[in-house]
């Protein structure tokens, strides 16, 4: 019998494969059997987790006690193995060791993108105030005092709204 893949060399290997839960059997030659061996699975999270082992700076700073996320119970060591966090709260509870990693991966630690309307808290308002302050300065430089006064009032209004919310989250 000829190899089912190349149809050239005689089949000498019997391979059973499970694809999407269905069993298929193929008869292959040595060469094709070797070529069809499953590729090494490259997992990005595992690769990233592995990178940690080669960072002396991070190892030095690592506190000795095992810390766990108080919400889901995941430890930093467990994250280290899988590259996946357990829940959104992990970012808060594991911050001491996670933050240096994030800075290294992302080159930054401050989100500057979109803010969701509801879950964004007062960040949307703070961003708006920042933007208006820039406008205010420009208007003053251009001596557009009437418009500047309007912008100033809008900033005050927004700031008082922040104050009512207690400033925090």
């Amino acid at each position, binding site marked *: 019998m000829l190899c089912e893949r190349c149809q050239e060399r005689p089949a000498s290997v019997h391979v059973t494969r499970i694809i999407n839960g*269905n069993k298929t059997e193929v008869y292959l030659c040595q060469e094709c059997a070797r070529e069809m061996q499953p590729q090494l699975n490259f997992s990005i999270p595992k690769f990233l987790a592995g990178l940690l082992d080669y960072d002396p700076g991070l190892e030095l700073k690592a506190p000795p006690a095992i810390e766990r996320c108080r919400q889901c119970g995941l430890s930093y060591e467990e994250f280290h193995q899988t590259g996946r*966090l357990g829940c959104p709260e992990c970012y808060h509870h594991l911050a001491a060791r996670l933050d240096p990693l994030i800075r290294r991966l992302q*080159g930054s630690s401050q989100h500057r993108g979109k803010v969701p309307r509801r879950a964004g808290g007062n960040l949307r308002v703070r961003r708006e105030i920042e933007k208006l302050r820039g406008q205010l300065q420009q208007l003053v430089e251009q001596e557009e005092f009437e418009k500047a006064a309007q912008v100033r009032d809008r900033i005050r209004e927004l700031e008082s709204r922040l104050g009512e919310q207690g400033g925090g989250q």
Partner: protein
Amino acid sequence: MSLNLDRNSKWMEGSGPQADIVISSRVRLARNLQGLPFPNLMNQAQEVQLIRQVGQAILAPGVFQSVGELKLLNLRELAPVERQILVEKHLISPDLAEGKGEKAVILRDDEAISIMVNEEDHLRLQCLLPALMLHEAWRLADAVDDALENELDFAFDQEKGYLTACPTNVGTGLRASTMLHLPALVLTKQAGQVLAALTKVGVAVRGLYGEGTEAQGNIFQVSNQITLGRSEEEIINNLSVVTVRLADQEREARELLRKQNRWQLEDRVGRAYGILANARILSSQEALQLLSDIRLGVEMKILRGIDQRLINQLMVRIQPAYLQFAAGKEMTPFERDVHRAAKVRELLAG
């Protein structure tokens, strides 16, 4: 809802800005819900609950008004071959198709919007458009995200932004990518050098088909690496600029080929067409290479009477699951090669 496997996705249209080189543009947003563990720690009840909650959310009038009708499909209700076809059309990831547990995908009719539920993150919202339309894809994704945020509480931190299962996605949760056809850069042996330079500007490159650095069919995918510390617009702009630069580089290489190797080029395109139109046995690798050659012929207006839409369609329809679906049975690799050749002849004949 039943799955219409015969329809072509929006991204396969083959027209739009830079369509002679850029095949498609994708924007993907990772989103998670507050108060739930990430999918890797969820139990089955939580998975089912999340699918139900998201299924409710997409029925909200605000969602319909903003982005049209979205429909949810439970992956459990699809046959393995149907799930695989969704992968071959780039609508879901292999992880979602093969993973254990309760998973779902939400699709708009034109397949420009697809949302994976219970992949690595609770939601992976993606918009996929033809040619270089990253800005349009981002605007659409932004609108879907806004509409869903009215119904669902996303996990968000004022400092870290959108919280994701893997810290490589935290912040914007945005992964933008474009798919480019770069045969002339490969033929003139510039691809390695040009693509290596991209990593220095925060852009990752990989071959669409094949492992590692090898790109079967000369199709490459470029995407942003960093998700935190930049706004979505900055990320999209940066990738658009890089994509246009790459396309310019490829166009230059094509013109050089036309000038210096005109007959070799036309011969290559003509032979590829001859084989595709007449072969009786076609391996996936050979088919992808020949399709790249005729795609180049079409893009350089050497080959008339065929459009990029047809080539995109061919590229998807010769994948294993599509062939098995069309044949209505599982096939050995050899049977697939025979069916692949027949499918190519049929589609080329119109």
